[in-house]
């Protein structure tokens, strides 16, 4: 019962981060801030959701379920590892390619400070 409540809280908070990342991709003004929302939101949400699923597997404890939970945990480590690196690579490619950084002045139509 307690384990189920923990799982529900983890998965729901993961979904919250996922929604936040999705809204960020749509609403943010330039490439860098969009990648910021996508990278951070996706990594954190997938981490929370998968940890919740792994704990749910351990609800009725057996060796087979422990194996499944371990595999999910490895996936989590892999995503925590690969996600920020790919975000970094994309941002760096954006800088090299010459993407403009959005500033507050852009919105008002004034020249860049």
């Amino acid at each position: 019962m307690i384990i189920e409540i923990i799982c529900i809280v983890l998965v729901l908070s993961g979904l919250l981060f996922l929604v936040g990342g999705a809204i960020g991709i749509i609403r943010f003004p330039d490439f860098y801030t969009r990648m910021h929302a996508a990278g951070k939101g996706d990594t954190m949400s997938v981490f929370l959701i998968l940890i919740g699923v792994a704990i749910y597997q351990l609800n009725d404890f057996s060796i087979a379920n422990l194996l499944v939970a371990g595999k999910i945990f490895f996936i989590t480590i892999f995503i925590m590892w690969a996600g920020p690196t790919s975000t970094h690579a994309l941002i760096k490619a954006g800088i090299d390619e010459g993407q403009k950084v959005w500033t507050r002045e852009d919105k008002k139509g004034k020249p860049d400070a």
Partner: protein
Amino acid sequence: MSAVSDFPDWGDPHSPANSYRLSQGYITETFPETSVPNMVTAVLADYRGYDTMFETVVIFTAGIAIIAILRRYGPKDKVVPEQKLYKKEPDLIVETTCRLMIPIIQLFALYVVAHGHHSPGGGFQGGVIFGASFILLALARDLQAAQKWVPENRILNLAGIGIFIYSGFGFLCLLLGSNFLDYSILHKVMGVTPIEARSHSMLGVEIGVAFTVAAIMFSIYSNLASKGEMKEGL
């Protein structure tokens, strides 16, 4: 659209496709006949092994066709303006992550290949993962770094070796006096029961498939990314 409602329910065990005695036969007979728990692999590599052999040949042919169309030898064509290639300076974070990650990806690919007859996976999937590890190396460093491990002639050799392993299993069965790709006769050389010989031979042909798929995956990537020059690319 009106005919869609006449389809059987999704996952209905009593639908005609599921209740026909062929699928029932596969479900009940696969493990006693081949000692492979994963029926999909058993159908793919044993009952329909002849199909899968030529699927591997199709992948090989696709790779050969890509090379024949895209690969350019000799002096550059001056008519096409030289596109300014994106010069990449090495990036510490990306390189370190890839250096740590590529061995793990390759180990996982071997696990997928070796476990294909027990759990989801197999030669095609494992081969794709193995080829993707070289593509990751080519993306993180440059194409030259990956070419050092898999040069062009080695790609073709590996792709050929894959088909050779697969068809070699078939011809070994012929030599021992059975039908083409009838693995149970191989218990004479493997020293196990005929049923276990089918399981082991499935692993063998999966390894052959993995060789071809991994080599052709990287070949297609490197040809597409470098416009056939095989020098530098993305």
